[in-house]
């Protein structure tokens, strides 16, 4: 517990939070990081977090880049999308527009990363506000199926599934990295990779 991190030894997974403004990206991040729920809304520009977690018995670090939902120019995102290894694409189940926007985000991510199978989770947040729901589970699940990504509903307020989305994503990232080290020329084959290979399930600790 008192030992210092040894970067070369500990795996580092870079996660990017994307999604429209006000859907709860920062709330999810803070809940995951510090177990706290912040009621006041203050638009994020960008902030970075780092945490040590135990993933399937292995200590790893997670870097979370919490990004701005409101951005005048989408191109500004290119750079940090580029740096991400996995994405939590968040929308609010109480806001149809935020769900529609996920498509744009995904498109941009795929373009920037140039990778169909980049680790990616579609996250419907604010599921505690079920009486204000505008996006049905079916719609969201259908969209996720279309993209061939998992869909998870979360609540940053009640902490429901908060750990799950981060850990699921980290598992995917880790598995991807393993595959890539297995074949050094993995980059070239990315697009041709079979989807079935990503079906590996994760265990949350």
């Amino acid at each position, binding site marked *: *517990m*008192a*030992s*210092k*991190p040894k*970067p070369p030894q500990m795996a580092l997974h*870079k996660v990017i939070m994307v999604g429209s403004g006000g859907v709860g990206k920062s709330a999810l991040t803070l809940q995951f*990081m*510090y177990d706290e729920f912040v009621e006041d809304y203050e638009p994020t*520009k*960008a*902030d*970075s*977090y*780092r*945490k040590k977690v135990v993933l399937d018995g292995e200590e790893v670090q997670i*870097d979370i*880049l919490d*990004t*701005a939902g409101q951005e*005048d*120019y989408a*191109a*500004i995102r*290119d*750079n*940090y*999308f*580029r*740096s991400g290894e996995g994405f939590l694409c968040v929308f609010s189940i109480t806001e149809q527009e935020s769900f529609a926007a996920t498509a744009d985000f995904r498109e941009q991510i795929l373009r*920037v990363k140039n990778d169909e199978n980049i680790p990616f989770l579609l996250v419907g947040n604010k599921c505690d506000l079920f009486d204000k729901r505008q996006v049905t589970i079916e719609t969201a699940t259908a969209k996720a199926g279309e993209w061939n990504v998992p869909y998870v509903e979360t609540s940053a307020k009640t902490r429901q599934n908060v750990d799950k989305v981060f850990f699921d994503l980290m598992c995917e990232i880790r598995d991807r990295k393993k595959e890539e080290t297995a074949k050094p020329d993995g980059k070239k084959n990315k697009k041709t990779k079979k989807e079935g290979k990503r079906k590996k399930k994760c265990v949350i600790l």
Partner: protein
Amino acid sequence: MTAIRHTLQKDVFLPHDERLLGVVHVSKAGKKKKVSFLCAAASTEKPVQVSIVNVKKSDKGDTYKRRQTWELRELKLVDGRDDTKESPEFDLHFEKSYKWVASNVAEKSAFISCLWKLCQRYLIKKRPDFVNVNPQLLEEAVQVGELTRTLPQGGEDVVDEEYQVLTAQEEADLEKLISQCDFAVSNAEAFTEQLSKDLSMLDGANIHSIMASEEQVKNLMKLLEVSETEINRIEKRLERYEGLLEGVREQMEQMKGKDTLIQMQNTNYKKLLSTLDTLVGQLDLSPGHVKALQEGDLSNPSHILDCTSAAEALQQAMGVQLHPGLCKMQAVREQQKMFEKLRSSFARRLAAHLNSVFVQQGHEMSETLSHHALEPTLPKHYSAHRDLMPYAELMLWLKGADITSFHQLAQVYTSNLKRLYEREIKDFFEAAKAILGTKPSAVDSKKFGKLMGSTESLGKSSGSKMRSSSLLDIADHKGSNPDITDRAKFERVLNSIMSELEPVCMVEQDFIIKFFHLSSDSTATDVGSDEEDQIEEGVVDANGGMFSKGHTERQTEKQVSSEVRRMMSDLFGTMEPELHNFINFADKMDPYNSMYMLVKISAVVMGMEEKDAGSYLATTLATSVVIVKRNFDKLIQAKIQSIEEIKVPKNKRCGILPFVSSFEEFAELAETIFKGSERRADLDKAYGRMVRTIFDNVERVGLEHQKTPQDVVLFENYHHLNAVFARLKITCLETEKKEARHKYKQHLDAYVINWLGHPMEKLNHFFEGIEARVAQGVKAEEVGYQLAFSKQELRKVIKEYPMKEVKKGLDSLYKKVEKHLCEEENLNQVVWRSMQEEFISQYKHFEDLIKRCYPESGITLEFTITDILQFFSDIAQSH
């Protein structure tokens, strides 16, 4: 009626100096309703004035008013109107006639008789006539009047009475006498003669009868004489009787006196008997007891019990309070002498026996002492205590019987056991140190050995400053896994030390309190079988928790006397220095250990506070806490010093400063150690000092660092600190957390603004100049007419930044940012995003200024927003 009378007297007449003599309740004849009182009153002053007053009761309330007043002498006639039959009516005639109806006949009669009386008394000349009044009433009134005359306050009542009325009787007799002589009136002379003739006849007859009675007088005299002699005789006889009675009384008195004497004697005998009884009972010691005292085997438990009861009996017999007189008795004195002898001989015997027991125990226990390898343990003395406990009561007896040998025994015990404890405690701490000093596994033994080596040499050679700081560095920065296991091990060893020390100390303390009967409110009276039960309990619990053992027994002895403390400090003299020695040893091994010790020992002391305030262990541990606290303060001070003395790395980029991550480590460890501890406040204070120092030194390093811009040093470290505070949720550092967050943002922005100036430096300067002019008051449209800011100049500057140039500039800026920032804090993306945003807004600002200051000039920058965004995308793709 008396009430009314009283009221009238008080309310109506007293104010006029009058006295109410008679009252009648009347109404005017004919008018029934109007009720009033007729009163007869006399003035209290002389000459007496009598008046008749009509008093009326006022309609409202109880006040009375005089309505009419007449003088008594004005009264001419009183008409009773009842010569034939009784009636309540009557009339009074003054200047005119008043008719009254009394409320009843009795009242009327009383009133009339009163009036009559008054008339008789006060009116001499002209008395009113009383008609139709029952003459009896008037006569009666006269008689009654004579009697009651004294009733009105006396003195004045001796009224002149020269005239006397002929009574009716005399009148009748006179009349009868006159009627016998018809001629009496006509011929007075004859009548007189007749009368004198009668008189002389009567005289003669009188003398005759007197003479005749002389004989009879003589007879009477004779009779009287006879009766006198008779009386004398009777008197004499009575005298004799009296004499007889006197004799009887004297005899009776004598008998009574004798009887009381006999009784007194009797009770005295009884008292003497009972006194002797109790004396013998109290002073008697059964032969069995004597035997037990003389030859009872002190190593045999049942004999000890016999001895105990015998000693008790002896004590009791000796302690009996005797009358001083009784003590003079030969037998008593002999008995007491015998007791004395018994006592001293038994005391000697007991002392000698116990003495040998103590010495033996001291030896035996040290022989059985063994070294345990895994956990440091202190040998328990339960069995020794159990062996000794049966003597507890005898010790109490000895304390009373022979205080010097009692003290000697205590001394022998202390000196023997002291040596034993000394050795045990020393071994115990040596064992603890040895455990801390050995490696559990061979892994990493080289490094550990080095660490141990340095600490050991430190321990010996009083530790130079250089060395200690190097040791600190090891503890601070090496941060290897063995640290963790070492700390866990240390915590374990510390816990076991505490849990070993407490029962041993407390049990020993309890034992000496009970055995040497030291506590003031001695519970010795009922020390018996339950004593041993408690000891048994102690044995069972000793291996369990620290606080679980025998609460009940300790509650009885709230205050531990100074005597106990003195004895304990004799017995455990080595504990304090050994404990302090250990504390310092542990501190030198790893200064962080002080934190464990501070928390643990404080908790133990706090935990004991309630029950064992002032117990030897509590005071010893309390002083230890002071030392530990000092070590803790030293640790914090050393940390602060190491922060202050840190050298700025010259040729590397700065990144997260070592003391920032070291603080994170420290805080993490401290949080786990201090969780829920009473010592939290100390930690919070230390935090406050450390964080302040860290902030100050982050600023210092920021200034001094040559490779990395100041802002980067600041915002990276503040970002990290903010994350640490947020993660550990240290409540006392809430303001520091906010401050760190605020400074992070502030310096991030400053960095972005500062370094964005670089890609288009000249353009930047140019527009800054324009803005300055506008700010000075030059109109926006007129700026272009100034030489330095003419359109030509603008075009020139714009020309210097074609698309290619800008792209190159942004590229190199990106690279610079990458170079400045460290990997660890991962703020590249954050900074770059901010730069992109700022760059775009700068571009827009330039465009806007051109539009405002050079309207319709058609000048634009050589690149568009789309171009910029494309640059950004390209930069993104190229990394």
